[in-house]
């Protein structure tokens, strides 16, 4: 846990604020529109991919770190970044392999943990 002694608090604050603000945008969409959660997730991932492709999202990532990469826009950014880097290496094939390759860890983890969760647990009534 040595790394905790060198924590850059201003960096962490930037991460907290940017991450929080991205979520606030999502919350406004939930409360002010009739969009379903699936649609909101799609809007975020697509926006992130386009902004990532245009190179704009990179500035936000440089500024806020995980505050920009953990929200779903960051997932989109990751897809776009992977696609572009792979295109640089392998051309047109890269456009097809790069995105999923970059996001493979997350997708595979979600699928695997989803399966495991369905094995060990079942839904319960919301008690609130």
């Amino acid at each position, binding site marked *: 846990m040595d790394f*905790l002694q060198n924590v850059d608090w201003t960096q*962490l604050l930037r*991460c907290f604020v940017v*991450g*929080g603000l991205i*979520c606030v945008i*999502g*919350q*406004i*969409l*939930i*409360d002010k529109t009739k969009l379903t959660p*699936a649609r*909101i*997730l*799609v809007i*975020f*991932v*697509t926006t*992130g*991919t*386009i902004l990532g*492709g245009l190179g704009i999202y990179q500035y936000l990532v440089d500024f806020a770190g*995980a505050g920009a*990469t*953990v*929200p*779903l826009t*960051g*997932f*989109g950014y990751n*897809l*776009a970044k992977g*696609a*572009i880097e792979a*295109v640089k290496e392998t051309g*047109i094939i*890269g*456009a097809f392999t*790069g*995105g*999923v390759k970059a*996001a493979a*860890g*997350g997708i595979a*983890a*979600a*699928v695997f*943990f*989803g*399966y*495991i*969760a*369905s094995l*060990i647990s*079942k*839904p*319960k009534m*919301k008690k*609130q």
Partner: protein
Amino acid sequence: MTPKPLETKKDYQKYVDEKSPNSPILKNCFNAFWVGGLICSIGQIIMWYCASKGLDTALSGTVVSILLIGFSAFLTALNVFNKIGKFAGAGSLIPITGFANSIVSPAMEYKSEGYVMGVGGKMFTVAGPVLVFGISTSIIVGIVYLIFNTQSITLV
């Protein structure tokens, strides 16, 4: 009150919108802000930890995703995530935790229809569109980059 709300469908919709209670948006945004910020900060700390172990940025990012997704899946399996989601709204939906929850929750729900067509088939009912649109957009981004990177447009 509109004098004759049932005159046309449009009038009725307007009347209903006036009658429908609004969500407590300020409270919701505040909760979304701090929970979302907190989840990102946890991600940042994991990232620094990976960096201190000598992993590069891309790999650290993947570790962050896997751990947050695992954590979210765990909380979903414990029947806790929906309570967090109800409290935090977009604060837990927008981070990668929400993506994980939207895969794990249908997997659990449709277990009753069997493991192949239930869990396997219905797992992506909520999150499938995210992958479809995210991946498709990334392919378009790659192709566009391929076409235009010879021009003087700076991309990434």
